[in-house]
């Protein structure tokens, strides 16, 4: 493969993004209005935050399929507490605690028992969904207005969800690029055995990565609660696919060791949201959404493997 096509592949997420904007922009002028573009960023925040956590996991050559279920359980607990009259400053930390408990479970089985990550997190996905349905008794819960206010609040003119997304992105970027921990994450993804021989405590780093993913899921659940104002039985469903797709679209390798949250995962999350938003703006058949999303995931994985092979 020559240099031009390699550069094209590296730029693929960016090119895809521009193409999608152009296609929907031509179909409907409303799509490119600044109000709608801000909307895309705000709507992308919850998926984007999960995708940042997912990027950490993917960088170590693992995967976390349980993030959507973790969001659901955290939101279900939050909903119950909110309806029972607990104040927000108590509910939010509890959501974080619930999510961390779940991801600690993932971390334990992946690092101590050494079970394949996708099977552990597939199991916790089902356990979490079952648990969440049990807590909510399969009914939708409408939350007090305080949540919705939080979701539509602005600080210095920036919507709070976007601000949280930005914050998570900034911290994650700094951790990955400027800290020893970040370098260890990359090292493990490149080659676990080598990392071990180099003296990295791989178990600890791996455990931390799943905890980070759980923490991000908790933040994403907060954002989603603020935007939806309700917990339905479908809360967070298939979020894991969107998150993996966003990370991989942004150039993170499924085989570990390669990728970044900025600009990669950010672009990936915006791209996915832009497609969904665009489909709504042009009044596409809602039944087509899952098919289009899966095709996008597939293309992103394929592009990623092409990139991988050129190195």
């Amino acid at each position: 493969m020559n240099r031009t096509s390699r550069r094209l592949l590296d730029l693929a997420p960016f090119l895809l993004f521009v193409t999608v904007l152009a296609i929907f922009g031509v179909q409907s002028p409303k799509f490119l209005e600044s109000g709608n573009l801000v909307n895309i960023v705000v709507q992308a925040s919850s998926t984007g935050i999960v995708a940042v956590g997912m990027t950490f996991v993917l960088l170590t050559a693992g995967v976390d399929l349980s993030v959507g279920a973790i969001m659901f359980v955290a939101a279900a607990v939050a909903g119950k507490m909110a309806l029972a009259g607990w104040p927000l400053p108590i509910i939010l930390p509890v959501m974080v605690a619930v999510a961390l408990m779940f991801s600690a479970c993932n971390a334990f089985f992946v690092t101590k028992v050494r079970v394949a990550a996708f099977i552990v997190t597939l199991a916790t996905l089902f356990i979490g969904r079952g648990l969440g349905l049990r807590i909510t008794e399969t009914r939708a819960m409408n939350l007090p207005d305080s949540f919705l206010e939080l979701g539509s609040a602005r600080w210095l003119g920036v919507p709070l969800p976007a601000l949280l997304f930005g914050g998570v992105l900034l911290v994650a970027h700094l951790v990955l690029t400027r800290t020893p921990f970040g370098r260890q994450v990359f090292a493990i993804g490149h080659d676990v055995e080598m990392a071990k021989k180099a003296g990295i405590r791989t178990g600890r780093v791996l455990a931390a990565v799943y905890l980070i993913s759980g923490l991000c899921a908790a933040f994403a659940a907060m954002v989603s609660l603020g935007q939806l104002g309700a917990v339905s039985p479908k809360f967070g469903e298939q979020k894991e696919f969107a998150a993996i797709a966003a990370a991989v679209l942004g150039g993170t390798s499924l085989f570990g060791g390669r990728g970044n949250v900025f600009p990669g995962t950010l672009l990936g999350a915006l791209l996915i949201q832009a497609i969904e938003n665009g489909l709504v703006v042009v009044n596409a058949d809602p039944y087509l959404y899952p098919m289009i999303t899966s095709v996008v995931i597939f293309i992103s994985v394929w592009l990623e493997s092409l990139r991988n092979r050129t190195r």
Partner: protein
Amino acid sequence: MTAAATTNHKPQTKNPLGWFLSEYLGLGLTVLLFLALAPFTPGLATSNNLLNILGYLLPLLIVAIGMTLVMISGGIDLSVTSIIALTSVVGAKLMTGDAGVPTIVGVLTMLALGAGLGALNGAVITLLRLPAFIVTLASMMFLSGFAIWLTQSKSIYGLPGSFLALGQRLPISLALTVVLALAAHLMLRRTVFGRWLYAIGQNATAAHISGVPVRAISTAAYAASGFCAALASVLLTARLETGSPVLGREILLDIIGATVVGGTSLFGGKGKIAWTFFGVLFLTVLDNALNLLSLSQFSITITKGAVILFAAVLDAVRSRFVVRSS
């Protein structure tokens, strides 16, 4: 990789852990479970209920057989439930209405569609060298979305009686399942195809160097899995008398769980049809007993999630233990 490479022979049974690691674990667990629960569970040991268990077991076993082949080759197929749903609605669409095709044509179309979709999965995985779980995850989403779009999420009724008999007459479904299981068993034990499948699962690179047509054989395993899913879809669709775009959606975990509980390794290179049968038996009895104990659907989902985790842990422990002892 070294773990998978050394685990094909029978685990030693002299160790106290031996029974736990032996190939009859699934069967042993089923018997234990049955004996433990029978006194407390009204109606568990009645002949009516046992027939009921059998009716639920057959389609699950059929899909699990396909999954076993794929797992032996070191892959995984998450798209089976969506193949079940899609073949169900396509078959039902063909066989109902005024221009309905004869049952035999409908069934053959379903089977061909299933095998074709499986082959497509396999071709994408092997030709583009993508991870099996992400490819089949994407096709799971796509095919399920396609089935729902095709029917606008409505179920299809009015299937011909000759088709319904396939799922509702126990001797017919039993015969179909037994023939498939025997064929798969013989193919694994007695044919070059079977040897190659194990070889690929143990070490694909080594198999390739030794002249095994790795891509064709892996693709064939996914095609077989798609075929099995379609056959299960025939039984399920006929039993429910409905072509449903969400058919089988809830049994993915059962399929993987049953296969792994039986002893087929997620790392490839190890597995048997008989093990899968034991695993399916275990999971079906568990499910049935939990239902009879009138536990809520959520608790059953949670229990099954726990079971698959347990199975995966067992698999990891088993492969590590066998490495150490050999």
